[in-house]
């Protein structure tokens, strides 16, 4: 009997402690974010939407259509069409299709890419109404010059030489080695999602084109960011202000390396 009573009181006490512990959480900050309003702060190596970079300094496309990514993709979701140009018999990229409805974002293609051309951006908002629209072609995939500059800086990838023309198998292993290389301690503070989002909405059709034109008269990255922020679309402008900080110190960050 006494045992029973003591057990009952012990049990009630335990319940009370549990209730108290739960009640303590009244005074704690909620850990959830209301997502569409505030974007999550993603890691630089986050494997998001695939994209093709251009050379940050000179705006030329980095892909040399060596088709390693097409070969390595476990889902066979990459399709590259290219041809040997008659004058300089180098492979010339015609079209580059990625079926994001099929991609599983394993990031293998980014590891084997000899010229660090195909990268995982920090953008993950690709929801769309039809599966066809998930197939990104060359225009949709190619990043503008300052975007690729931003990602080169953020992922701390070595900037490519102006003439990236060596699809040597020796370079194949360079990609993971470069990524795995001990990085300079440059904490990238800009919230990536915040600026990755408008970039997708920005009309990228004219991105390579006008970036080239700008690049002709102003070869320096930092200046042309200011230049481009004006002509481009409304949402872009807000993003530019955010992306300025990483880009502002980007040249200084890179000169010691290069």
């Amino acid at each position: 009997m006494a045992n029973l009573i003591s057990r009952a009181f012990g049990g009630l006490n335990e319940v009370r402690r549990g209730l108290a512990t739960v009640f303590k959480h009244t005074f704690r900050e909620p850990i959830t974010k209301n997502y569409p309003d505030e974007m999550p702060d993603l890691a630089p190596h986050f494997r998001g939407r695939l994209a093709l970079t251009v050379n940050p300094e000179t705006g030329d496309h980095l892909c040399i259509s060596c088709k390693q990514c097409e070969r390595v993709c476990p889902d066979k979701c990459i399709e590259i069409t290219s041809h040997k140009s008659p004058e300089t018999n180098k492979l010339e990229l015609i079209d580059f299709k990625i079926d994001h409805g099929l991609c599983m974002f394993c990031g293998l293609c980014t590891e084997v890419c000899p010229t660090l051309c195909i990268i995982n951006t920090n953008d993950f908002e690709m929801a769309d109404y039809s599966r066809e629209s998930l197939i990104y072609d060359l225009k949709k995939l190619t990043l503008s010059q300052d975007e690729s500059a931003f990602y080169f800086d953020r992922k701390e990838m070595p900037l490519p030489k102006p003439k990236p023309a060596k699809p040597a198998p020796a370079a194949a292993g360079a990609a993971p080695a470069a990524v795995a290389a001990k990085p300079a301690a440059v904490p990238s503070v800009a919230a990536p999602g915040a600026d990755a989002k408008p970039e997708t909405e920005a009309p990228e059709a004219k991105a390579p084109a006008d970036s080239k034109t700008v690049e002709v008269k102003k070869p320096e990255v930092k200046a042309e960011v200011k230049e481009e922020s004006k002509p481009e679309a409304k949402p872009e402008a807000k993003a530019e202000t955010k992306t300025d900080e990483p880009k502002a110190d980007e040249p200084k960050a890179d000169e010691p390396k290069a």
Partner: protein
Amino acid sequence: MWLAGIFTIVWMVCWALGIALPMLLTQQLGDKAALTNEILRAATPVIAILVFIPINAMFMVLIERRALALWTVRKGPNRVGPDGNFQTAADAVKLLLKEDITPTGADAVMHTFAPILFFAPSVFGAVPLLAAVTNNHPLFRVLNLPTGIFFVLAAGALPVVALVMAGWASNNKYSLVGGLRSAAQAISYEIPLVLSLITVCLMAGTLDLVKITEQQAGGILNWNLLGGGALTGLNNALAGGGAKALATSYFMGPISYVCAGLLVISLIISFWLYLTGACAEINRIPFDLPEAESELVSGYNTEYSGMKFAIFFLAEFTNLFIVSSITTVMFLGGGDNPIPPYILNNIPGIPQMVAAIRDSYFCSTLHIINPETFFATLWVIAKVYGLVIFAVLIRGTLPRFRIDQLMAFGWKRLIPLSLIVFIIVVFAREFVICHG
């Protein structure tokens, strides 16, 4: 904190819907023929309840979700309306507009009738409470039954049938198991529930809810929670009666003191008993076996959708509200404020405030608020929602019983305990002057 904000909104709306609205109604039409006036006076409480219950249930759902979000370090509903406060309203609309599916092979008639039978008792069961919770408001005096608590309990025993019907009619094995479980559970937990209430009625010497409330007026020491009037003598002594008051109530000296202590303990126990039994009655965690989500998919309302499910949902929360108000009336002194008047009136400012409110525009010119019912309702709402939030806290913490353990707990622990308490009270109240 936003909780307080919500709380005030709830209270204002409860007040407006429950009291002010029908009162205005009657006063507008008061000049008409006496007949209509009488009819309306008779009808207003029902109107009040019918308007009040759904809105109140919505508020309770909102509060529950807010509190759970708070305790699980989340943001609660924060999209619909200002700070997501219209979330539950939107849900209600969605539920009403959803397609109403009756599964193949289900007994359509019973399947449709079950939610109604489940909801109806919680409506007319709440009726006699109105007079009690509004401190015998002139509007609701009509409804006061001499056997109020008896009526409420009788109404509260009905929904079990509805649950069994729902489980049986929806042609689903999970639902069937859920319905049978609910029957077994409700029947076995009815007993400690009623026994604990009978204990209180024994102390009060009446079944009339209003009388019980009025007995407990005058401070926390008079509440049934604390000895059901066993401490009234002490209260009077503190109020200024001095040793004489003590002598009058505890006429048998030390024996009376011991008995008073016994009464206090036993009534606290029966308060706890009542809470447990009530939790089991309205199928809340840790006694939510009829709709055990991880075992039976959703128990008796697995096959329900749209409006029928909405009614089930509504009725559950209404039951929770009713149970809380019964607790308030029977144990927590109804609309009485815990601080005894002899302390309250000595606090500077309080009497002036009361006077100010009494003379204010609302009271004097248009008679929406008459002070005693006003403050009474304020306290009732405070107590009731405190209990509701406590139930939510329990829901956020405890896991679920197993059905056989539930039965064992009910029959082997609660019922003997409540009987023991009952007998103790029967004898102890002979030696102390207490209510009734």
